[in-house]
């Protein structure tokens, strides 16, 4: 972990050393803060994407299962998280459940103490709901015969799902999934309202000190760079999938 921390500091130092001479003073002065916030946003994004994908796959399976209870539970989960604002979800967890305190939450309390962990949990659950819907759309669009053929060749249900169905569902859902990741990145800015110093959190802190609007412009540029990187990554993936 400390190796990672050191690497982050090294990148931050190098980036700021390179950027400070060529950018206005109002940026250079707070450069380490912006870069630090940028890292926090990227970390939250990567972790919530990965964990959210696990949830999304499980929920998509549950939505397609013939077990009525699983089916309904998965539907309610994805409907509730897609039907309420992300900000409300964050505040229910952090200010709402968090207000119950250590004595009521017991072993869960350490999770609720930190804005960062709540932010990660809520972003994960939120994206899990949206991605499960995207994946379900991909899965139902694959001809049923493929699953039957896979099972007929002796594959188990899970093998057929992971080797035959999911790869194709991902191919169909890829562009929509890329859009969702960008939306998640944009939504992650809301964790700044629960004390997390992500890029937006740092931006608001710097703005409250200088009251200089340029601060928001710098932050917007950094978010645009991040959005561009995500889009390129997904374009790259799309091209890779086209081969063969």
């Amino acid at each position, binding site marked *: 972990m400390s190796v990672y921390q050191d690497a982050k500091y090294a990148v931050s130092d190098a980036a700021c050393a390179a950027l400070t001479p060529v950018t206005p003073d109002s940026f250079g002065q707070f450069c380490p803060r912006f870069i630090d916030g940028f890292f926090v946003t990227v970390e939250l994004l990567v972790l919530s994407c990965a964990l959210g994908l696990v949830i999304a796959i499980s929920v998509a399976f549950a939505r397609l299962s013939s077990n009525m209870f699983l089916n309904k539970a998965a539907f309610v989960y994805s*409907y*509730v998280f*897609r*039907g*309420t*604002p*992300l*900000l*409300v*979800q964050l*505040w*229910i967890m952090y*200010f*709402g*459940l968090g*207000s*119950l305190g250590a004595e009521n939450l017991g072993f869960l309390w350490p999770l609720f103490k930190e804005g960062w962990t709540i932010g990660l949990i809520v972003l994960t659950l939120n994206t899990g709901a949206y991605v499960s819907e995207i994946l379900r759309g991909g899965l139902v669009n694959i001809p049923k015969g493929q699953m039957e053929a896979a099972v007929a060749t002796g594959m188990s249900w899970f093998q057929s799902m992971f080797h035959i169905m999911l790869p194709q569902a991902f191919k169909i859902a890829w562009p929509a999934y890329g859009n969702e990741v*960008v939306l998640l*990145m*944009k*939504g*992650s*800015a*809301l964790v*700044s*309202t629960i004390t997390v110093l992500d890029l*937006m959190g740092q*931006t*608001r802190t710097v*703005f409250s000190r200088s009251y200089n*609007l340029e601060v*928001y*412009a710098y*932050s*917007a540029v950094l*978010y*645009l760079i*991040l*959005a*561009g990187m995500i889009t390129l990554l997904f374009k790259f993936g799309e091209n890779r999938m086209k081969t063969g």
Partner: protein
Amino acid sequence: MFELLSFGDTGWGDDLLKGVVITVQLALCSVALGFSLGLLLAITKLSSFKILRWTAEAYTLFVRGVPEFLILLLVFFGSEQLINSSLAAMGFEATVAVPKFAAAVAGLSLIFAAYSCEVFRGAYLSVPVGQMEAAEAVGMTKMQGFLHIRMPQLWRFAIPGLGNLWMVMLKDTSLAAVIALDELLRVAKVAGEATTNPLLFFITAGLIYLAMTALSDILRDKAEKSAQKGMASS
């Protein structure tokens, strides 16, 4: 505990209801303004002027890559500074406070415009070119063709996308709570702080949002079905 949600002097029910009204007003105003801006943007994007087209492209790229929250704060703080500095430039010694509602409408409609213009453009391009050629062949002018052939069909393609954007807008109005506009979420926050029972009020607010999006979902389905009336089902 639930008497806190009752109407009247002791409960917060009426305050929450007022919050709901402001939320709905905010969403409707922003959608109306954003809808017009979006149409304008779509026309710009389909125009043959390169500079206009690129400006519109750049604008949508910006909005789609920058958090809604940041845009809202930028508009909120920016409009105030812009107005005050231009007043100062004109020689007036006054500081004007931009109403929060207006700032929120401005921010949200700018966002809605960028997303809806893509929906409009997609819908415009979905009407087969052959139909427009046919319209011209029977002697319609370009304008007539647009009004009588393209426009009526445009909605069929635009309604699902616009319905989605309406629901996104309903949820995005909650961001106005951060600039202390007294909409639903903000009322819930204030009530939670005053009664030291934030969980109850936030969950209530969440359920109200859920009810509003569920209702929108049903209405969108209906609108989609009626738009598809008479079409061969695909």
